[in-house]
Each structure stands twice: as structure tokens, then as C-alpha cells.
């Protein structure tokens, strides 16, 4: 680890990876909640138009891509709000238009479509100090908004109509979410690349949903997974001499795959309480003392637990045991 940090270009690469890992899942949690998981992918295409324009005009690519991406995102959102983006056709036109414009513009600029590859797949090691500064500033904006406005953005992303009856400026918040997603996509083109950034917005969130319960916990856990995989992937790719973007995304997918068995185990241990079977308190269970056994039933003891009125039964060789004073009742 010390060795890596002695190279300035790797310092910048790791810092850029860290910031991407922070912001992509933070905004991604809202995007996934709104069922727009593929929005990031589409916006990546639009960002390419910005890159093409930057190559043609000689400006720095990231700022131009940010502007193009935000404009594209706002257009998509306004079309959606007006109910005009039905059938995804409008989105498709915008996205492929962006891709085509990017390739076209880079062609005229003389760089050629090949010059776009580093933005499509990321090129962490060529991140400049100026890039890092811009990424850091925008990352702060994104984090302050996604965490500070969490209750409002949550309400708007989960139940738009209800949010309107709360007097919230729903349109403004929706545009905020897609704009932040657009900024994230444009920033991530240096780290994981435009084609893979959507993965970093969605996959840590999917993994976090398996591991923890609740929206806030999902957001925080997703950010943790994002940071770990982004920094870990960037560092590992240095030693393995592999493409960092691909490495980061594959690592995130590995975490997601692992989250399935882990969530299964967690569920067995923690909440081994199945939904209530009978919802009738008047029903009195006859008091039948069952056979005694040395095993002590308790949550997580290995026997499936079932909520039964005011207590918990444990399924025990085909029947249900309820703890009662010093013995078990048959329920």
C-alpha cells in the first residue's frame, strides 16, 4: 500500500476512486428506489456528446460532459413529467443521439472514435490534479444534497403523489435527483468509465438491500460497499496490471453475489421470526406441557421461530414449542 502512495498519479487515482465510490451509491440509492436503474447508463451516452464537443473545442472534457449530461437528464425528466416519454422511445432517441454525436464530433476533431475509449472504460491513471479538484467539489455538493435532503428525496422517490400532498416541490426534487445522477455519471467517466458507471450506482445498492433493512441503512451500507470496492479495485488493478474500471465493477458484483448467502444467514439468525400465523388474541391455546429437553430455545437457536400472539413459538420436530416458565408448552 505504501508503495502505491509514492506515485502521485496513483494518489490521484485512489482519491478519484474513493470519491466515485462515495457519490455513485449515494445518489444511486434514490435512482434505484425510483426504478430508474438504467438511467445512469443512458446518461453515459449523453456525456459522450459532451466529450466529443470538448475534443472538438479543446476544452477540458469533464466540465463539458457535466453540462451535457445534466441538460440531457433534465430533458428526460421533463419529458417524463409531461407524460411524453412513453414507451421509452424519447429516452432512446436522446441516448443514442448522444452516443452518435460523441462519435461524430470526436471524428471531426481528428481524434477519432478511438480517443473516446478512455472515457468509455475509464483511465484512472491519467486523472489530472484539476480533475481531482473538480471531482472533490462536486462530490461535496452531491453528498450534502443526498444526505441533507434525505427525508424529502426519500418521500419523493417512494411515493410521488403522497409527497405532493405534503406540499413538497416534487418536480424540483425529481430534477435534483436526475441532475445529481448526471453529474455523478460525468465525473465517473475518468474512474470506472461511462459504460460502467451505472454499475457502481446500482450494484452496491442491490447488495446493501440484501444486507440491511431500511432506506437509511441501505444508503449508508451502499456507500460503504462503493468506497471499499472502488478503492480496493483501483489498488488491486495497480498490482494486477488490469483495467481499474472493470476491476472495480467486478469486485462490486462479487460483493453482490456474496450478499445473497450472507443475507440468508442473517435472516436465519436475526429475524428468524416468521410472520404471525394467527392474528386472533381471543384464541386460547390449550395448556399442554411437552416433553422436556436440554436444548434451550431462544431467538437464533437454530429452530425456526414463529410469532404467536404475544410470544414466540419454536418449530421443533414438526410441532411448536413455546417457552413457559421452566418448561415448554405444545402449541
Amino acid at each position, binding site marked *: 500500500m505504501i508503495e502505491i502512495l509514492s506515485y502521485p498519479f496513483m494518489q490521484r487515482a485512489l482519491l478519484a476512486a474513493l470519491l466515485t465510490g462515495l457519490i455513485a451509491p449515494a445518489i444511486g440509492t434514490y435512482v434505484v*428506489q*425510483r*426504478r430508474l436503474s438504467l438511467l445512469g447508463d443512458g446518461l453515459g451516452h449523453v456525456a459522450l456528446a459532451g466529450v466529443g464537443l470538448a475534443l472538438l473545442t479543446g476544452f477540458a472534457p469533464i466540465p463539458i460532459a457535466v453540462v451535457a449530461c445534466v441538460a440531457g437528464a433534465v430533458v428526460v425528466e421533463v419529458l417524463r413529467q409531461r407524460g411524453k416519454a412513453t414507451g421509452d422511445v424519447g429516452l432512446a432517441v436522446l441516448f443514442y443521439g448522444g452516443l452518435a454525436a460523441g462519435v461524430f464530433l470526436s471524428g471531426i476533431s481528428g481524434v477519432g472514435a478511438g480517443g473516446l475509449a478512455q472515457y468509455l472504460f475509464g483511465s484512472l491513471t491519467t486523472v489530472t490534479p484539476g480533475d481531482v479538484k473538480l471531482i472533490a467539489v462536486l462530490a461535496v455538493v452531491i453528498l450534502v444534497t443526498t444526505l*441533507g*435532503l434525505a*427525508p*424529502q428525496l*426519500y*418521500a419523493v*422517490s*417512494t*411515493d410521488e*403523489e*403522497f*409527497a*405532493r*400532498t*405534503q*406540499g*413538497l416541490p416534487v418536480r424540483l426534487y425529481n430534477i435534483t435527483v436526475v441532475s445529481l445522477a448526471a453529474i455523478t455519471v460525468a465525473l465517473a467517466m475518468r474512474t470506472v468509465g461511462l459504460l460502467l458507471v451505472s454499475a457502481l450506482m446500482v450494484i452496491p445498492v442491490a447488495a446493501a*438491500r440484501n444486507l440491511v*433493512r*431500511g*432506506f*437509511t441503512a*441501505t444508503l449508508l451500507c451502499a456507500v460503504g460497499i462503493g468506497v471499499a470496492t472502488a478503492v480496493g479495485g483501483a489498488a488491486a488493478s495497480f498490482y494486477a496490471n488490469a483495467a481499474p474500471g472493470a476491476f472495480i465493477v467486478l469486485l462490486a458484483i462479487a460483493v453482490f453475489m456474496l450478499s445473497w448467502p450472507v443475507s440468508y444467514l442473517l435472516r436465519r439468525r436475526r429475524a428468524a421470526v416468521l*410472520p*404471525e400465523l394467527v*392474528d*386472533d388474541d381471543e384464541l386460547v391455546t390449550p395448556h399442554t406441557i411437552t416433553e422436556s429437553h436440554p436444548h434451550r430455545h431462544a431467538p437464533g437457536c437454530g429452530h425456526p421461530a414463529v410469532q404467536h400472539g404475544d410470544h414466540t413459538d419454536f418449530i421443533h420436530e414438526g410441532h411448536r414449542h413455546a417457552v413457559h416458565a421452566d418448561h415448554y408448552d405444545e402449541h
Partner: protein
Amino acid sequence: MLAANELTVERGGLPVLRGIDISVRTGEAVALMGGNGSGKSTLVRTLLGLLPYQRGTVTLFGAPLRDFRDWSRIGYVPQRSLAQLAGSKVKEVVAAGRLTRRRPFRPLSRADRDAVHNAITLVGLSDRLNSDIAGLSGGQQQRVLVARALAGEPDLLVLDEPTSGVDLEHQRVLADVLAGLLAAGTSVLVVLHEVGPLGSLIDRAVVLSDGRVVHDGSLGDLGQHRRGLGSQQHHDHGQQIGDDHDQNAETLLGGAVEP
């Protein structure tokens, strides 16, 4: 508290609601009834500004709908649909009902926290604070949505079919909750498909048919007209004004109101 005059709503050029007059007065419990497609949900959502309307006026707490800003006075319980709420904890869902009283970038205050807890306790789910809402039964999910509307401590509660797809016991719990609110002075506008256990609370029933009001009066009158004409008798699960009786009810009620 809530009033609409000559309200007309068109969707795609076709009238869905025609010249509706409806009002809810302070402390009153009004049931909005009618068969499927009669426009009940459209009316409620129009009254709350969620759908546009073409003609007529809507006033909320004395202010025209367009200028109404005092949203904390209204608690809305939409038809149960959890598509995007799955994965949230009960207390997170309910806390979203407190947003009318919160400013951006401020954490939950003590009063907010208490209001959320009180609302959840009121609907009898205080042992499920941290449960995933998707893991609850339909009736419990409905109660979470009621708690969310109550977290803002509203003066008027608007419920859209809170009893549909919910078993009788949960309907009784809901009736108890509403009875408590009415006793405390809250007004209620509730869309119902059938009366059920909520019937005893209702002061007035407004019945829609084909986008028009065909009855506006006590529930008893409604029952009498129908009994007198030999239609559906009381069931033990309440009177039905469902689809199967729609035609029946429409003709009966049509004769019962002044033209």
C-alpha cells in the same frame, strides 16, 4: 374545510366527473361511495390537487386549491400500493408524513419523533417500528399508511379505499382509530366500496354514479330507499354498493334524489 362546486374533470376529452358539489364540514365524517369507475378516486385526487380539473372550484380550508399551502392540515391515505415503498422500515415510511412540518436540511426534532411514534402507536404497530413494510400483512400495511397521514397531525384525513383487500379484523381496528380521531375533532373523508365496520362512524354518504352525485345524505336514508324498494338487505358484513349492485343502486338512488 373542503368544498367543491360544479367540479368537472375530463380525461382525454371525455368527462369523468360532471358538475360535482361536495363538502366536508368541521368534525364531520363523510363517506364517498359508488361502483368501480364511478369516479370516486378521481374526485378525491382532484380535490387534493393531484389531478387537473377543467371547470368548477375547489377550496381547502377557505383557500382556493391553487393558493392552498397549509398542507399539514391534510392527511392523505392513498390506495394501498407498495411498489416503491418495499425495503423501507415502518418508522421511515411514517416519518415521511411529517415533512409538511419540517424544513430541508434539518434533522428530526423531538416533536417530530414523538408525532411519528404516537401515530404508529395509535394504529397499534408500535412493536413493528423497525420491520420492513413489505413483510407486513395487507391490513398492517394499510395501517402504516394511515399512521403516515396522522404523523403530520392533520385536521382533515382523506382516505382512498382504506378497507379494500383488508380483513374484517383490521377494518375494525381502523374503525376504532377513526372513531378516536373524530372524537378529537378531526374531519374525515373516506372513499368506500362497501360500508363495513366503518358504517357506524359515517355522518353523511355521498354516492357517485357515472361521474355524478346521485345521493348526498345520511347512510340511513340510503339504506331505507334501498330496503323500501326490496333491494339488498343488510349483510353481516355491511351493505354493499359494489359493482354487482351498481346498476340496481343507480336506478334506485336516481329516483331518490331531487333532479
